[in-house]
């Protein structure tokens, strides 16, 4: 966004109705020298301190995880985007995303790191008053203190505002007495500071409190036994008239739910970054294994069935990554613009992030499901060894699964994607009505048979993406019209609409990234990336068609359904394309480089 032309900046969710230009997005091939050095530091940290100790970490060896957090803190990795006045390095959002991505391959350590530097630190940084920030942030940034976040309760997970934890003022007015039970609390075993959500008296909404581990009335349950991320400390935290000084109320009374939601917006896109980092590492392991393992006298990487898997792992990861850094740049520029208009930097950051909450939810779903695909095929490529606890795929497979559950389940995030889009339309922030009506009109007209258009390198893909938008607008528009208030209850339809939006956003992101990359390096140097883009968009068309059909069949009838089905076909039509050859090209590059190399 150019500060002098704020109108030209694309708003959150606006990707559905507006075109984005390739030169306006950020792509990971643009990292500067300093950012690459920071990335190297993260990679070296994992290689030297984390990866050799994964088994010890998973056994929860006493003191090991907090020690690793302190080591990361000594390198400055816990304070990347914290302002310098609070002991951080004041780096931009993309840089902190890069750190999250690079440390994402650290299994349970990554979870501890993300929880500490995200939900463990940011509520205080963003909502704390000066005294609270001065007291807690420098210690959290250095790793001297570790942070945790207590929102979920046994009876309230996705429905966070329904928690039973309560706080009441002590008779002398000096303390809040906090009572309740919190569950699945990451880092609980070694955290020094907890951000705890509870309702004061009979308030309608949550409030947030900063609770230190030594406050009287706080106790911890034993470690949970989990499917994966076994090295991450996960416990229940009990508060029994826990004495929290009144000055430790975070922000205002009843502001807790807003804090929780806003912090989750950031957490979601960050989770995307972490899972992409993890995917890249798993792909590298899979490629190396496929190059070494021989069957029938040849390395298994010579076989098409394996090549398909390697290519598909890389294509989905590359696509997810494209979306992550595109949205990160949007968030950062929106924040900068808000600062320029005079808003306090921290408020600007929250508002800038919130504006792209739709994109954050999309990314959370896509990146976590990509990692699940990558680890699943990773196990398959390893074959019998994939199922052995001696080989790395076992841990990767188990550790991946939580990503579809925490930071809002993927189902909640899918519903949010559609819900937020429609709410913004209702508020008049997004004009979905006009474009949707235009598409409805187009259904009646004669289809465009692709008359004389100048055939550029991206002409086809740009047209496909434009058509995907029409498909989403048509199905979503009809769903709103038909189901009205009932739409919120038709969760299956919401899931389908979300799937369409996700595939649209990611397709556009990979197209824009490759277009920008070709502009930087030339077509010849980007041949494999062009193949990745073409395969991704080709397959996205089918996914969008499938999801659209599911939705239309659920609510539309008669001639109207027929007409929309035809429209859907038209908007998701792609030319014949040899995806097999394209995937072989992608796999060949991975195999030659013996690692994830994009």
């Amino acid at each position: 966004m150019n500060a002098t032309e704020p109108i030209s900046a694309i708003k959150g969710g606006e990707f559905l109705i507006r075109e984005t230009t390739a030169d306006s997005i950020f792509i990971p091939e643009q990292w500067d020298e300093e950012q690459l050095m920071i990335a190297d530091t993260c990679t070296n940290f994992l290689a030297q301190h984390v990866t050799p100790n994964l088994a010890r970490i998973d056994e929860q060896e006493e003191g090991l995880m907090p020690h690793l957090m302190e080591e990361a803190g000594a390198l400055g990795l816990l304070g990347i985007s914290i302002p310098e006045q609070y002991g951080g390095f004041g780096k931009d959002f993309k840089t902190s995303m890069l750190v999250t991505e690079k440390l994402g391959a650290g299994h349970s350590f990554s979870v501890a790191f993300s929880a500490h530097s995200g939900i463990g630190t940011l509520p205080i940084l963003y909502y704390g008053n000066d005294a609270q920030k001065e007291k807690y942030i420098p210690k959290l940034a250095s790793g001297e203190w570790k942070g945790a976040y207590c929102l979920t309760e046994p009876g309230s997970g996705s429905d966070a505002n329904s928690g039973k934890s309560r706080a009441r003022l002590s008779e002398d007015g000096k303390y809040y007495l906090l009572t309740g039970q919190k569950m699945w609390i990451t880092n609980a075993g070694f955290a020094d500071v907890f951000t705890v959500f509870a309702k004061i008296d009979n308030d309608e909404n949550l409030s947030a409190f900063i609770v230190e581990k030594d406050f009287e009335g706080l106790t911890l349950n034993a470690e949970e036994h989990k499917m994966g991320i076994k090295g991450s400390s996960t416990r229940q935290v009990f508060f029994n008239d826990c004495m929290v000084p009144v000055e430790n109320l975070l922000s205002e009374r009843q502001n807790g739910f807003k804090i929780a939601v806003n912090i989750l917006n950031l957490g979601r896109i960050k989770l995307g970054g972490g899972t992409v980092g993890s995917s890249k590492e798993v792909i590298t392991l899979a490629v190396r294994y496929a190059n070494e393992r021989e069957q029938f006298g040849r390395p298994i990487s010579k076989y098409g069935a394996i090549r398909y898997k390697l290519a598909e792992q890389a294509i989905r990861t590359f696509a997810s990554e494209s979306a992550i850094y595109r949205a990160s740049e949007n968030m950062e520029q929106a924040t900068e613009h808000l600062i320029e208009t005079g808003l306090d930097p921290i408020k600007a950051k929250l508002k800038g992030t919130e504006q792209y909450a739709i994109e954050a939810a999309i990314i959370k779903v896509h990146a976590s499901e990509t990692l699940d695909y990558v680890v699943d095929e990773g196990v398959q490529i390893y074959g019998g060894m994939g199922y052995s606890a001696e080989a790395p795929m076992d841990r990767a497979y188990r550790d991946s699964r939580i990503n579809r559950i925490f930071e809002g389940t993927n189902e909640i995030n899918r519903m949010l994607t559609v819900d937020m889009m429609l709410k913004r339309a209702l508020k008049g922030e997004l004009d979905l009505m006009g474009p949707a009506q235009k598409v409805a009109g187009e259904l009646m007209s004669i289809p465009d048979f692709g008359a004389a258009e100048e055939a550029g390198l991206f002409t086809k893909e740009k047209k496909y993406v434009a058509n995907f938008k029409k498909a989403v607008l048509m199905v979503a528009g009809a769903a709103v019209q038909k189901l009205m208030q009932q739409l919120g209850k038709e969760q299956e339809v919401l899931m389908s609409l979300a799937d369409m939006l996700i595939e649209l956003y990611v397709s556009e992101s990979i197209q824009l990234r490759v277009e920008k990359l070709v502009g930087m390096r030339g077509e010849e140097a980007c041949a494999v990336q062009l193949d990745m883009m073409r395969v991704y968009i080709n397959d996205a068309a089918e996914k969008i068609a499938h999801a659209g059909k599911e939705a239309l069949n659920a609510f539309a009838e008669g001639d109207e359904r027929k007409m929309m089905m035809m429209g859907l076909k038209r908007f998701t039509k792609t030319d014949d394309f040899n995806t097999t050859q394209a995937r072989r090209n992608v796999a060949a590059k991975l195999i030659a480089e013996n690692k994830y190399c994009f």
Partner: protein
Amino acid sequence: MPDTSTKIILKDNDTAINNLGTTFVINPYDEWYALVRALELKEAGIATDIHLITVGRADVEPVIRKALALGGDEAVRIDADSNDPFETAGYIADYAKFVGYDLVLSGKEAIDYNNGTTGVMIAELLDMDFIGFATDIQIETNTATVKREIEGGEETDSCTLPLVIACQKGVAEARIPNMRGIMAARTRPLKVITPAAVMPLTAVLSYEMPPAKAGVKLVSPDNMDELVELLHSEAKVI
């Protein structure tokens, strides 16, 4: 030098290496041992100023700044291309003579051409004492006590400064650049020096790729005759 995972591709009729797309790294003997020990000496109040000197064109600057991210007061790039240890040593010695260092630390060898001679040549050109294959360096006032690896054992030397020491494993523990160092690297001075007139003593005629690794043959421990036969007829070592 090229990252160790780089796939080497030759060009110009095998007389040169194609560096397009190659990632360059600092020679690990320089980075992990010589530089880190220098930093430790400064942290202990023994060294006062650390200069990082390299010979190379502008494209090596990101690598020097990476070294500066670990520490050091300034970097010096002598603007020349050199694959010849005498030429490299000549450039460095010329600059070192001008500054007048008390201690010059180098890696025991570079991991690209593995010459292992630059350090000792610098010492010779500067008329300074030299200790190679150092595994431990202690400095007290004007005297260095250096342990070095020798065939089958270890030797401890004592030598007064000025001195050139070529370092290897043991001298220090590898460090990872921290955020403070990375951010400071940009602001630390990087001087570019025009090289002195030094003629190389060697020239590369051609490169050859190593032969592909042959497969491994497994012989059962019960079958000593087969092993002896294979060692005699195939490996031709007995």
